[in-house]
């Protein structure tokens, strides 16, 4: 009789423990789902993408990286944030990059040096001139700011 009673108690305890484990598992799963749902959006980069525009100074002109057109026109979207990277490849000649209208300029760079200008294009479309200050007659080009959502094909020229 007593033995039967103890066997019954033991069975009830195992069932209770099993039920507690199941509840804990469900709670854990729920916390995990809520956690992923809350944290996942936080990992997304909400900052606007900054486009890099690399210019090489060589043979007394600016070129797009690997490009063949001297002093090319650069197209930006209104409000777009870009990073101009200037690399001086002219041995023995110091160059810089300046955008007079936006009062921006890099230091004068010796050969194989580089510098960066971070720019947010104005909200109003328009154009600016970029130059190398000591060689502005030969080294100057246009920055065209076009309305947001302008033709991508045009913008990437």
């Amino acid at each position: 009789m007593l033995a039967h009673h103890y066997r019954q108690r033991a069975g009830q305890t195992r069932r209770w423990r099993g039920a507690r484990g199941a509840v804990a598992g469900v709670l854990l799963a729920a916390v995990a789902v809520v956690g992923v749902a809350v944290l996942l959006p936080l990992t997304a980069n909400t900052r606007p993408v900054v486009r890099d525009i690399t210019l090489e100074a060589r043979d007394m002109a600016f070129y797009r990286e690997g490009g063949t057109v001297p002093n090319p026109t650069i197209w930006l979207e209104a409000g777009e944030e870009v990073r101009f990277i200037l690399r001086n490849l002219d041995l023995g000649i110091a160059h810089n990059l300046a955008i007079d209208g936006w009062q921006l300029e890099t230091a004068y760079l010796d050969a194989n040096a580089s510098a960066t200008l971070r720019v947010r294009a104005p909200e109003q479309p328009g154009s600016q001139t970029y130059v190398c200050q000591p060689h502005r007659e030969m080294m100057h080009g246009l920055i065209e700011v076009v309305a947001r959502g302008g033709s991508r094909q045009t913008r990437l020229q």
Partner: protein
Amino acid sequence: MDLDTTGWSGEGAFTQTLIDVFERLDQVAFLRVEDVPSSRSDVEYNFISNELFVRFRTRDRAVRTKLLGLLPVTRMVTEPVMSVTDLERALSDLGEVGPPDYADEGMLQYLRTERIVPPYQTRGYKLVELVRIYQAGTTPRRTEDDG
């Protein structure tokens, strides 16, 4: 001196000065002159870029060495009588040329700038001449995109 100007348009007064100087230098055996594709002109400037490839005369020199590190032998070595560094010194001493604006062991570079005002005009343009001198057989420093 053998002169090859088949790849040169003839533009560049300073380039012509250099050719004349090289013709007087006994150490120079061969000179090739070429236009660089980055030459260009606009309303405000005329940019002329040329490259000169020089081959120096050579001489034979006896060098004593040891065969297999044991047997003393004499070998004849052919070497140029001048290097780019020697050429830099020689050109620097000449009044019509002077020292280069940039020099390293493989290249001399001259940059000449002049403002030209044509007759009966008030506004002139800038004439810029960039000349690079290499030893023949060296790869020019211009990038591949320049041609």
